[in-house]
């Protein structure tokens, strides 16, 4: 599989610029900008929410007001002006779409441009897609088919209406409102997102996919994803993100919670391609995301991320290995170019006995960017025989970029085994020359070498995503060797 895609990827290389930078001309309904209790009440009432959820939001808002923005990350940026952000923007729609045919043609056009035409997906790949534009879920495909298996896959808002017990039971159990500044903000103002529940013993027969898109200007995107895999079930979940090119910085503060009950497995893959800003570092999305999963006995959570977008990334998909014999994995490729900054990594919290975690992180820095890996491996005192392996590699493309590694290890159990490997290398002139002597252009040579370097991570992605990710890597690193 990887053999095939690696060859195909460079076809799109002509695409020098950020190709998702278009704006869709769709009427948007926005609430006034700024944040106070009234706005939260307004959002909640627009979404026709039960009172417990409004209380949840208001509590979170109270917590948030007392918190300060974290500054420990190795990134520098002008802090968002929280009172200037519009917290709710939705494509104007009077009715719910019953079927794909009902969807606004402009919207369909957008999805096609993003390469996620639902029709095509349905026909060819069997991926169920939930499309979230400016905070509101627009279309979810394959709902009926999944329903037969008892799988719930819908927008977060629909889940609140139709499955309130499940939402109430699990929401905030992995990422509490008090967790951090951005999680608290999200908990107060989140507008939509995706919800997924896989019943006991069911193996979800297709990839579930959510596509996030910020379209309207001046807005923030605050979505929430909640995935619950009941005992013995399996699901593979994909998430993709893009945004238009704008000179302003847009805030994206999401919360993702994964719950893997006994012997369940969740595979969560992200290809993050928010607008990274222009070559001078103007504009771009601030991607401040809290992602965390909890594993009960024998359960497994695997995070795979390919991060190429955003002006600033602050994100640490983590696993709480609560149950004995549970497994956590984190595979990451983070690319930064021009003035992008990324501070990303993971936390593996080993609570149960015989828990195992693997961390493979590949950072690639180009231009004048700064790329940091930050990870925590924590072995608690009851985690007998816990085991961790971490590998953090950094690849530098120029002399002006930076790669940093901040690995933290806390071990309170003497039977634990922890391994950490790290390398830093510069892309080899000799490798490039070798490729070029065989007739391969410099751009293609770079993408070959970089894709080779990231192979362990890319191999974790489902097929369609792997192709997309490889193309993205090539495009993100256009003209980046210095």
């Amino acid at each position: 599989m990887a053999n095939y895609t690696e060859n195909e990827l460079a076809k799109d290389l002509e695409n020098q610029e950020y190709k998702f930078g278009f704006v869709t001309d769709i009427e948007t309904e926005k609430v006034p900008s700024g944040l106070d209790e009234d706005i939260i009440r307004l959002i909640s009432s627009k979404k026709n929410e039960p009172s417990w959820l409004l209380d949840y939001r208001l509590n979170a808002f109270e917590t948030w007001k007392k918190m300060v923005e974290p500054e420990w990350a190795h990134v520098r940026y002008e802090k968002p002006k929280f009172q200037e952000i519009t917290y709710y923007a939705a494509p104007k729609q009077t009715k719910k779409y019953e079927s794909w045919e009902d969807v606004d043609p402009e919207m369909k056009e957008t999805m096609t441009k993003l390469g996620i035409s639902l029709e095509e997906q349905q026909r060819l790949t069997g991926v169920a897609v939930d499309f979230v534009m400016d905070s509101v879920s627009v279309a979810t495909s394959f709902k009926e088919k999944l329903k037969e298996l008892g799988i719930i896959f819908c927008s977060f808002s629909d889940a609140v209406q139709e499955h309130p017990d499940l939402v109430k039971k699990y929401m905030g159990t992995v990422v509490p409102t008090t967790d951090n500044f951005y999680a608290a903000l999200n908990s107060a103002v989140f507008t939509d997102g995706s919800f997924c529940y896989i019943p006991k013993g069911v193996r979800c027969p297709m990839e579930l996919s959510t596509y996030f898109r910020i379209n309207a200007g001046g807005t923030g995107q605050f979505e929430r994803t909640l995935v619950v895999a009941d005992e013995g079930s399996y699901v593979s979940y994909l998430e993709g993100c893009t945004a238009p090119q704008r000179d302003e910085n847009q805030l994206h503060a999401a919360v993702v919670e994964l719950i893997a009950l006994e012997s369940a497995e969740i595979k969560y893959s992200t290809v993050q391609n928010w607008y990274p800003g222009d070559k001078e570092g103007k504009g771009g999305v601030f991607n401040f995301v809290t992602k965390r999963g909890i594993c009960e006995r024998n359960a497994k959570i695997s995070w795979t991320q390919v991060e190429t977008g955003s002006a600033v990334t602050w994100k640490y998909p983590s696993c709480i290995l609560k149950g004995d014999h549970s497994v956590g994995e984190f595979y990451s490729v983070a690319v930064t170019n021009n003035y992008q900054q990324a501070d990303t990594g993971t936390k593996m919290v080993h609570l149960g006995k015989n828990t195992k975690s693997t961390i493979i992180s590949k950072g690639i820095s180009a231009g004048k960017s700064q790329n940091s890996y930050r990870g925590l491996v924590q072995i608690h005192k009851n985690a007998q025989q816990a085991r961790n392996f971490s590998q953090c590699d950094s690849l530098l493309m120029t002399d002006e970029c930076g790669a940093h590694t901040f690995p933290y290890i806390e071990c309170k159990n003497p039977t634990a085994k922890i391994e950490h490997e790290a390398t830093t290398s510069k892309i080899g002139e000799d490798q490039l020359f070798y490729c070029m002597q065989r007739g391969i252009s410099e751009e293609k040579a770079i993408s070959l070498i970089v894709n080779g370097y990231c192979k362990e991570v890319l191999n974790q992605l489902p097929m369609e995503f792997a192709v997309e990710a490889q193309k993205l890597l090539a495009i993100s690193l256009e003209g980046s060797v210095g």
Partner: protein
Amino acid sequence: MIKIKNLHANIEGKEILKGLDLEVNAGEVHAIMGPNGAGKSTLASILAGREEYEITAGSITFDGIDLLELSTEERAREGLFLAFQYPVEIPGVSNINFLRTALNEIREYKGQEPISAKDFMQMVRDKSALVELDSKLANRSVNEGFSGGEKKRNEIFQMAMLDPKLAILDETDSGLDIDALRIVANGVNKLKTPHNASIVITHYQRLLDYIVPDFVHVLYDGKIVKTGPKELALTLEEKGYDWIKESILS
């Protein structure tokens, strides 16, 4: 095929080539021998287009085209191939992918369609047999974890796949045991046609027992100082380079 006239080249201000002349025609095999530091590998690097060398005088035409005007990859696509003295490792990129990418870039340059997967795999089988390369190596990452001999064989395998007009073998014999040497040389001989040519750069006569050259040149102090038939190599082996130095001085 290739005409090098009065070539002068510097690296970091130091003159390495000092007026080198060489002409190679289709169907010919030329050996270039010479003591350490004579400029043999410099010549190979310049032909392939390494940028750290500065050409201060002279010209190189390749099939009528000014070679010095072409980028490294354009030279390769025009049919110039360099078998590296030290082949480079590219982790995570399979040999097959690497070659298919290269082959398709060359085909695109020539206005041809990409090769079909079926034809490509057939070609891999045929050509790897030619250099007795284990087909498993074709699926491994480019040169990663290859032994010295495997790396050199892989160079000849790539040469077979890309079918160049002019192949430059830069000390391909270095680090090879006698069996590997024979295999590599056999590969080169089998690839010889009336339409292509090779320049074999070597230190020792040994390789020329297997690859029989039409001409042997002695490169000394940045110039070709002597040219002769294949027997010249034997004389060099016997007498060393000192008698050439002496004959130049006298």
